[in-house]
């Protein structure tokens, strides 16, 4: 029996979720740090896009191999690579400095992201607890 059967897809999926959510947190932090930077354009990481992209599978993409440590890093086909988009600028902004960070939206997104990260962590944790229970035979 492969470990894939034992752990099913849940753990790898949740792991990816945790990974993406921590990345998104970084994006949101960068937006907040730059809230007063003139002409800063807010970024966003759309997790739904990343999940569908991961779901399509990168099986038919042949990864480039680095044969020397001094070769340029190839990150194009890596599963770790995410695509950052520019967040939609608020429709009506009275700021004259060209900054497109919407503080309320960013803080809301951040709260949502944090909660969902905690949810995923909780589910993984429970999953492991369940496995442990089974291993111990319910003793």
């Amino acid at each position, binding site marked *: 029996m492969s470990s894939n059967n034992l752990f099913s897809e849940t753990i790898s999926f949740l792991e990816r979720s945790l990974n993406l959510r921590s990345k998104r947190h970084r994006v949101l*932090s960068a937006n907040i740090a730059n809230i007063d930077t003139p002409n800063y354009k807010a970024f966003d990481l759309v997790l739904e896009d990343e999940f569908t992209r991961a779901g399509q599978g990168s099986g038919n993409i042949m990864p480039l191999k680095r044969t020397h440590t001094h070769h340029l890093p190839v990150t194009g086909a890596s599963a770790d690579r995410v695509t950052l988009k520019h967040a939609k600028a608020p429709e009506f902004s009275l700021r004259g400095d060209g900054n497109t960070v919407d503080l309320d939206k960013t803080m809301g997104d951040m709260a949502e992201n944090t909660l969902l990260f905690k949810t995923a962590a909780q589910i993984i944790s429970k999953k492991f607890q369940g496995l442990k229970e089974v291993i111990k035979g319910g003793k």
Partner: protein
Amino acid sequence: MDFFDALHTSAAGLSAQRLRMNLISGNLANAHTTRTEEGGPYRRREPVFAAQTENSSFGEILSAYQTDMLPQVKVIDIVEDQSAPVLKYDPNHPDADERGYVGMPNINLMEEMVNLITATRSYEANVSAVKAAKEMALKALEIGR
């Protein structure tokens, strides 16, 4: 590690906002200063924020470009307000010119207070981001416990 990068980014935001608050405090404290080392009345100072990645060498910039290009905030300059001093008639002032006018710093209390509140709020937003990052990292540490 994304959490540590997030913490560094927020820390850069915190320190930029704190510097801005310090400059505003300096402006408020010197609202009536008529003598400075450079001569003339005090001039109000303001930070210039710029979004900057913390990488410097070509390799670092290239790899940053290939992964993601999230910029940190950095104070690249502190500029002095070049507007003319406000002339105030006060013949008894030691710095008064022969017509009895004293050049006072061109500092608007309202403007400084509004900037102070904005800086405080931005600082708080960064603090929230730090807290959220910490909470998430702690939650991740609980996996398997």
